[in-house]
């Protein structure tokens, strides 16, 4: 799993690649915390997690998303998800995380 940052409009975009599971969730959490800090420093109101390159995410990754959402709330940065593949779409539905996060089909579609 790796990630990269890109500032687009009013959002910090974090692109995730690979998979987030028991072996990679700690690094994923560090990346999201880093993204929120960068967004806050750049006075951006949103952080979009681009899931295009993500194979899948287990409950560890999903729970890291919740931690990031809380960190974002404290920092005034809204955390959103974009471009999940079919597997991730199913995982988000089964876990009911599609009720907790704003999810868009593409990064560009994020309002």
């Amino acid at each position: 799993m790796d990630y990269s940052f890109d500032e687009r409009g009013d959002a910090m975009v974090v692109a995730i690649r690979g998979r987030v599971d028991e072996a990679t969730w700690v690094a994923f959490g560090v990346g999201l915390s880093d993204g929120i800090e960068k967004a806050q420093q750049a006075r951006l109101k949103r952080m979009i997690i681009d899931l295009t390159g993500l194979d899948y995410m287990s409950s560890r990754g999903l729970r890291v998303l919740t931690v990031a959402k809380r960190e974002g709330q404290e920092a005034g940065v809204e955390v959103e998800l974009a471009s999940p593949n079919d597997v991730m779409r199913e995982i988000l539905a089964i876990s009911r995380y599609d009720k907790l996060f704003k999810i868009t089909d593409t990064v560009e579609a994020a309002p």
Partner: protein
Amino acid sequence: MLARFWGTRGSLPVAPTADIIQKKIAHALVASDGRKFADEVEAEKFVENDLSFAAGGTYGGATPCVEIEAGNGSYLICDMGSGLRQFGLDSMRRNAGGHPKVYNFFLSHLHWDHIMGFPFFVPAFDPEAMIRIHSGHPDAEEALRRQQEEISFPVPFDWLRATFEFVTLTPGETYEIDGVKVETKLQHHSHGSYGYRFTDITGRSVIYSTDSEHKLEKMAVEAAFIHFFREADLVICDTMYSLADSVSMKEDWGHSSNIVAVDLCHEAKAKTLALFHHEPTYDDEDIERMHQETIRYEELTRDGPALNVICSYDGLEVRL
């Protein structure tokens, strides 16, 4: 080794209403499509083979009570929920056939839904019965006596005629109890709860882990649960909520999700996961949907041998 589920519902006993039964019958009649059945046996085969479990049956509504058959023949019972009443009656039938009247209980914790069956446990009135109550909680006896005080129940604990022994177990220790190796593990729940690992002489093992919340900010401690579940033949696991509920409005309510249970079992290389402690507001269709979704999640995230995901119901027997 065998696990027999006498109660699988969490928090509160539930029962289907007349309206629900009527809908099940109506659904079955429509599904039969005018077919004629020679007798009830043939009709039962249709229900079993042609209807879904939720349509033709029910997951039941008794609160937690699971019997483990292993060891040298004494009873091993996890928790005393409302399912205990039926177990008690069934055990008396078996006692009449010569089964030893020795009952080894293992309490996950002392919340009401896990002890409410005890005042209705008829063998407690048998002077020949030996009832040994194991718990991680030193206040187990106080909890059982208190629920039979006059303000709550008409029959005080001291009227019971069986011989009682209360045994406090310590996590990290391994106990040999009537031919079965027993280990216990502290879990996150209000007033604490304890999981149990039972291993028989052949090495087969069953985990009973209910009322156990796996906290967001403490994911690192899950390694200890993975070790506790390691290569278990059956893991009976609290799967009361969706993951989203367990980290949002129901956070700190002390329960886990189907998703976390699958991940722990995958990492532990367990063979079978039994979904357990069903949410009392769920109807049969909700539980069946949760079961199907859990099977799908297991497929999507599998990175090794397949984990068999079953859904517990009152009356289920799993032979290992």
